[in-house]
């Protein structure tokens, strides 16, 4: 496991015209969005279990930046970040997660089932690996319909051991699907370390043997994530097939809101990763590389705060859905 954690960030190799401040803002928005969720959960306003992506913000932000609006995406219960970064309206997302009428699915889906087809979002998922086939199918349709569209599916390290994931990895290779298999390797599946879930802990090695192009990257560096996904997107779009990206990262929080995340992980490990969290590190780099002043960073934080607050105001102002709607909408 050679996560390049702790390494200093470098200027991206090919300088794309990236808006670094926007990237930072997006990570901040995500972090603050999740902070709010946790707060509402504690207050009992948000129901059910809550899986935060704290410490993994660079993955969704970097990955979605490399995708187009028409590209498709599936992710997991830990997927708020992908929805936001893919362009989902923050207020409607918050409304869904709080079970309100103006939510993305009118309050029917809830936080594990975020859909937003206008932004290509084909669902978060409550079943480990459950959304991988959906993304593979979207890639298949792009291929069959000859549309310039790719699909990305985000999932965790533990997920590769679910049969359907392997079935799709093989078909992605076999059919040369325009698919990006984006694995957020945060070293644990719930409380289980990778060494107790995979016979071969080198996931890139394991996936390469299926016939996939693979690459392991620093998943805490939004620029590296962006570049890698952009490359993978290019390959996919020109018919060169699927890429498995292993983004090394770490959730600084627990598996879900009631898990402190400490009993099964060494304290030093948590500390080390926490001090190298994508946001902290990127902020430092922005300043040290003169892409932003500390003042600008502060402003971004305020802006993120404001946007998130506004979103939740919208959500909280939205009424509960009409109860009778519960029995409607099984079929269109």
């Amino acid at each position, binding site marked *: 496991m050679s996560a390049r954690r702790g390494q200093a960030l470098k200027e991206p190799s090919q300088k794309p015209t990236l808006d670094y401040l926007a990237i930072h803002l997006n990570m901040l928005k995500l972090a603050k969005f999740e902070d709010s969720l946790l707060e509402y959960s504690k207050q009992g306003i948000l129901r059910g279990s809550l899986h935060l992506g704290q410490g993994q913000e660079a993955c969704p932000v970097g990955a979605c930046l490399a995708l187009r609006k028409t590209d*498709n995406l*599936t992710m997991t219960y830990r997927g708020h970040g992908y929805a936001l970064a893919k362009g989902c309206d923050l207020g409607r997302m918050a409304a869904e997660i709080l079970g309100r009428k103006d*939510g*993305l*699915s*009118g309050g*029917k*889906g809830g936080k594990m*089932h975020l*859909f937003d*087809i206008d932004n290509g979002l*084909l*669902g978060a*998922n*409550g*079943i480990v690996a*459950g*959304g*991988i*086939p*959906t*993304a*593979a*199918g*979207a*890639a*298949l*349709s*792009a291929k*069959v*319909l000859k*549309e310039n*569209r790719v*699909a990305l599916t985000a999932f965790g390290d533990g997920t590769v051991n679910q*049969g*359907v994931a392997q*079935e*799709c990895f*093989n*078909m992605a290779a*076999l*059919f040369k699907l325009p698919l990006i298999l984006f694995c957020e390797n945060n070293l644990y599946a719930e409380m289980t370390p990778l060494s107790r879930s995979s016979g071969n802990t080198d996931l890139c090695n394991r996936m390469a043997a299926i016939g996939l192009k693979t690459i392991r990257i620093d998943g805490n560096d939004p620029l590296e994530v962006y570049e890698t996904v952009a490359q993978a997107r290019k390959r996919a779009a020109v018919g060169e097939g699927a890429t498995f990206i292993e983004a090394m990262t770490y959730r600084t929080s627990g598996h879900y809101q009631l898990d402190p995340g400490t009993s099964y992980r060494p304290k030093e490990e948590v500390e080390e990763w926490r001090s190298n969290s994508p946001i902290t590190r990127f902020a430092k780099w922005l300043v040290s590389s003169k892409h932003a002043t500390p003042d600008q960073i502060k402003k971004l934080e305020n802006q993120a705060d404001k946007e998130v607050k506004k979103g939740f105001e919208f959500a909280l102002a939205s009424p509960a859905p009409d109860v009778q709607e519960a029995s409607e*909408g*099984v*079929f*269109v």
Partner: protein
Amino acid sequence: MTYGQAVKSAIAEEMRRDPRVVLMGEDIGHHGGMFQVTKGLFEEFGEDRIIDTPISESGFIGMALGAALTGLKPVVEIMFFDFSLVAMDQILNQLAKTTYMSGGLSVPLVIRTQGGGYKGAAAQHSQMLESLFLHVPGLKVVAPSSASDAAGLLKAAIRDPNPVLFIEHNQLYAKESDIDATEIPLGKAAVKRSGSQASIFSYSFSLTLCLEAAEQLAKEGIDVEVVDMRTLNPLDFGTVEKSVKKTHRALIVHESAARCGFGADLAAQIQEKLFDELDGPILRVTGADHPLPFAKDMEFASLPTVDKIIAKVKEVLA
């Protein structure tokens, strides 16, 4: 035209009509399907639209969902109904729930499969599992008993904007009937034989056994009505109600197991809504509540037969 050919012709017509219709499954393309139902389609439509898959049902059924959400109308084949069990999460947790959970996305796809016993294929190659797909909400479920119903209902299924499980029966593939080119709307039962003394509700291959039983009973002067449910979800309770109100006695026949089966469900609904119309209990002839044995006599003892239906009708009338 046979039932098998009717299925093929419906698929071919829909594929010609709508370029978004694609097929997926094991050995359906180059080979034309294990029962030759898709024979020749590969030659006509090519490998872009007829996709031979690895033995990865869970994966490719889930892929059909993704494809359906993004512009295609996949018709996916599960070679034997029994094999659907390897793909239940994708079918019941994913594609059956997507429309509801998403607040209204359309999932236009059809899962075609075939089931049924009476052929010495034993416990893992004979099951009719429709009731599992009726219990977990979110799929339309269709099980035609004749070539013409198969053609008409399959067209409707392919045109439907919702996921449809289309259940063919092995013992019906060679069965002939005239078919016309019209679509038969989902959710409509059909009275296949009109009668006055009792109502038999059935579908798929069992329905044909019921018609045979009704023939024989007629010779004994017993006049029964036979209703082909055809679509199991949505259920056409209106037609059931009309029939029960006429005959006041009901029998339900299907090949799948009794417990928590379609017949249990329909019986519960009938007594709930039409209690006062009933002159006696609703009885059932069903597959047995144990795995299907291999040896012939044991197998037939475990499945509906014409004789059992005749005997049960007499019980219903007793």
